[in-house]
């Protein structure tokens, strides 16, 4: 599984945009069995907390599937 670090900049339901250190935005969708709830994303976005997202690349979608969202060390 791949991982990426950055700041959550946009949240819509279970979808969010992570802005990485280079300033590029990446669209994520929380997976069905992810270790995070959509309600938690809003708080992360509000506080601009740096997070690490473990993800996979789903087929036929321009977006990434987030399996875990943790506060980066």
């Amino acid at each position, binding site marked *: 599984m791949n991982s990426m670090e950055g700041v959550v900049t946009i949240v819509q339901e279970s*979808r969010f945009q992570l802005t990485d250190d280079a300033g590029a935005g990446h669209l994520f969708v929380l997976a069905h069995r992810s270790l995070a709830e959509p309600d938690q994303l809003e708080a992360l976005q509000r506080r601009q907390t740096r997070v690490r997202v473990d993800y996979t690349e789903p087929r036929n979608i321009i977006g990434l599937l987030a399996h875990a969202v943790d506060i980066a060390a």
Partner: protein
Amino acid sequence: MDVHPRALDYTESEFSGPIPNESELTAGVRIVPGRSYGFFTDTTVCIGCKACEVACKEWNNLPADNVGLTGQSYDNTGQLSANTWRHVAFIEKHSDGAGPGVRSTEKPPFQSGWLMMSDVCKHCHNAPCLEACPTGALFKTEFDTVVVQQDICNGCGYCVPACPFGVVDLSTLDGKAHKCTLCYDRLKGGLEPACAKACPTDSIQFGELDDLHLRARQRVQQLHAQGVETAYLYGVPGGPGATGDLGHLNAFFLLTDRPETYNLSEAPTRPANRVAASLLTGLAAVAGLALAAVAAFSRRA
């Protein structure tokens, strides 16, 4: 061009924050909870630019799906889905009598052979998806629109076959039902829905339902006067699309061909209307089988 008097209060290029009741400036309507809002989609002025699709994806942070070419049309979105809440259908008409499936080789001058329609959730007055939802995740908002609450949806999928228009879809990514929210978050902030605001020809008009019905009827009269006698409204009370106890559709359309041409049902119905008949049929089948079993066992005895 008519400019709202309040527009003169905002002449600068950059703003420090959102404009209060911005929809008044962009759509000519102030959004007030407790009133009915919807979309009037006039397909005669749709140019198929797909700005509505893009605006919807941008605002709602929806991923692009079905990457690649469908090979069927200039329309590569294909259909509404869990990730596509607006879909501009491209329908090519056959005008030289060649028949269905045969592409025309000649067109009358200055006439387009294409019909374009921006399809969306109809936000039915008596919404079948809402009636089928066992968790209450689907609800009617204070703006008379139908929305799925993502934190309550358990992904059972009952709403998917209940929708007579095939709009609601389960996402394979998060396992939940998704559809157009008529930009519920924007309405709460006094903003016009993203698709209507982005539409360059005003094919998608947002407003109070009574006002939209009036505007739509005037547009039909205008088109009839101009010689487009096939123009009619789909989804207004008493008209096609508002059949089978659906009441009316908060997102209604002005069409110039049969509803089926636009992939719309001619007479959609509420599945709830068939519950009593289905239940009685089931009970009759059980009673019949029980009687047959009793008869079979009594013969043996």
